[in-house]
């Protein structure tokens, strides 16, 4: 499926943030904004909600902690109890290091895998980008062109908000 996008190219992040606000105020829906680095404030300007990844990370960590404690208590306390250094079978203080490490391990990997999955990031040969300069030095605002959208008006809107150029781009949906 092919979709058409209007691309407003911006040179500066301040200009971009004002433009996003004005474009949204004009009732135009922004598809996405591509930038070479994380622009602070763009989440609020675009109305992106705060990521819930930290909550996921917390629960992954909790899983790691429970698993580590279960593993150590089950193995050394119940399955094959051994007396080591005259300590009780379940000597919790010496289980702390492994419990901590597994908490961190589960938390980090769980969160990172979730991040790549929900963002649709995976190794692939071809990456269709809107404008190759968006990973270098340009900020690219992409607006989907629906049937009957007046490109002239849109160009005028983007231009008046500081876009240095306005292009049209056809993208084939993967």
């Amino acid at each position, binding site marked *: 499926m092919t979709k058409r996008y209007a691309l407003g190219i911006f040179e500066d992040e*301040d*200009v971009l*943030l004002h433009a996003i606000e*004005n474009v949204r105020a004009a009732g135009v829906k922004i598809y*996405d*904004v*591509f*930038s*070479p*680095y*994380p*622009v602070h*404030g*763009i*989440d*609020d300007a675009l109305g*992106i909600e*705060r*990521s819930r*990844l*930290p909550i996921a*990370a917390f629960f992954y*960590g909790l899983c790691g902690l429970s698993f580590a404690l279960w*593993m150590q208590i089950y*193995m*050394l306390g119940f*399955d*094959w109890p051994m007396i*080591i*250094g005259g*300590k009780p079978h379940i000597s919790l203080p*010496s*289980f702390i*290091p*492994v419990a*901590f*490490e597994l908490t*961190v*391990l589960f*938390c*980090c990997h769980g*969160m*990172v895998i979730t*991040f790549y999955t929900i*963002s*649709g*990031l*995976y*190794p692939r*040969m071809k*990456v269709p980008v*809107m404008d*190759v300069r*968006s*990973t*270098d*030095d340009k900020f690219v605002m992409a607006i989907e062109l629906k049937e009957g959208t007046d490109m002239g008006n849109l160009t005028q809107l983007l231009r*008046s*908000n*500081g876009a240095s150029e306005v292009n049209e781009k056809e993208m084939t949906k993967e």
Partner: protein
Amino acid sequence: MQHVSPVRIPLVTSGKTYHDVTEDVCRQVEAKPNIRWMAALSVALFFLGVFLYSVYRTLWYGIGEWGLNKTVDWAWDITNFVWWVGIGHAGTLISAVLLLFRQKWRTSINRAAEAMTIFAVICAAMFPVLHMGRPWLAFWVLPLQNTFGSLWANFNSPLLWDVFAISTYFSVSLVFWYTGLVPDFATIRDRAKGPIARRAYALLSFGWKGGAKHWSRYETVSLILAGVSTPLVLSVHTIVSMDFATSVVPGWHTTIFPPYFVAGAIFSGFAMVLTLMLITRVVFKLEDYITLEHIALMNKIMMITGSIVGVAYITEFFIAWYSQVEFEQYAFINRATGPYWWAYWSMMTCNVISPQLVWIRRIRYSIPATFVLSIIVNIGMWFERFVIIVTSLHRDYLPSSWAMFSPSIIDIGIYVGTLGLFFTLFLLFAKFFPVINMAEVKSILKYGVDNGPTYGGPNTGAQQSTYRPTGAPASAPVNYNKHD
């Protein structure tokens, strides 16, 4: 029109633009390997060969090839292990702790420092694995039931904690580093001319496009990883120090070890970062990104951690005397005046005295002095581990089993060989990966440089350079100051 803040010194000099950053960092990735790089790589590969030969001897003939004896049954192997792990810690400190403290200057050095972490941990891991003698049975350290029954691993052992700590540390550092690399691989991909390079970097970039939502999640992930890596890095060297501290050997059995080892790790790690950065900035012409200011700041961290280490040395001595335990007292007198006095005094000179020179501003800002100092510190930190390990073991409770240790040629070969392994990996990294985090450097490019009203086009009314969202009340603080 450009105003340079008197308080905040710009982190990147020469007024670079976003495009300049891309150009400067991608240049060496896109250029053909030059002769100096090839020469350096050949030297590194030669030492990698030495490593492989020494490993072959160790595996084929057994660890009898090493200089260990019945009394000193832990020497260079564990010394090198602790040394390498310690070096690795600076990378995590820069990428995680300095991120939490909002030290923006870290952005130009964190990529290379994290790479250093990963390669140093790889080198470190060689030693315990080789000391097993039969590394093909290395999986025995995992909590798997043993082959003949239902015996599990011993979770009360600090050596087992080490397995968990080092493997967690390695994999988390790798993921942290790679996630940071993804946007930069995308930059290289979008610039790549050849089809092979474009495909290769497309694969590496995971299809990154730099959308707003992705950046938002990326920043969240970085922050959480930093928050979790900070206690992790402290735990790793704490656990390494417990390999010694939980034993009853005089000179090892002390509660000061965890903080003392962590400070020492950061100390030696920063020394190694300085050594590598001073070379990298010249070879890749990155003087505008890794400035004298960066070098001075790293020197300061080195001086502080070096002083902590110095205090720890003196405290150990004091406690040995104060404890009234004669074995403990002898262990320390023996360190300073016994047959290994030269190792002890090398350690004291390199680690306690030399970093104090950094108090002098001229030395702090001098490249040759810093380079020499960073090498001295790394030598000193190697001696610290040697002193702790060998001088404590060679004379403990029973005088009839006292002995001396001298390394075999294979011991030396493995140690020098891991340096070869480290530099091989680092050189490959420096050639094919962006050595500076381009995305993060671009985000701090305006630090300390106030451009004034950036947008004065028609039909706006928005003349102020700071941005305030429509929804926010007029009294709300402006959160979009890029300098915080």
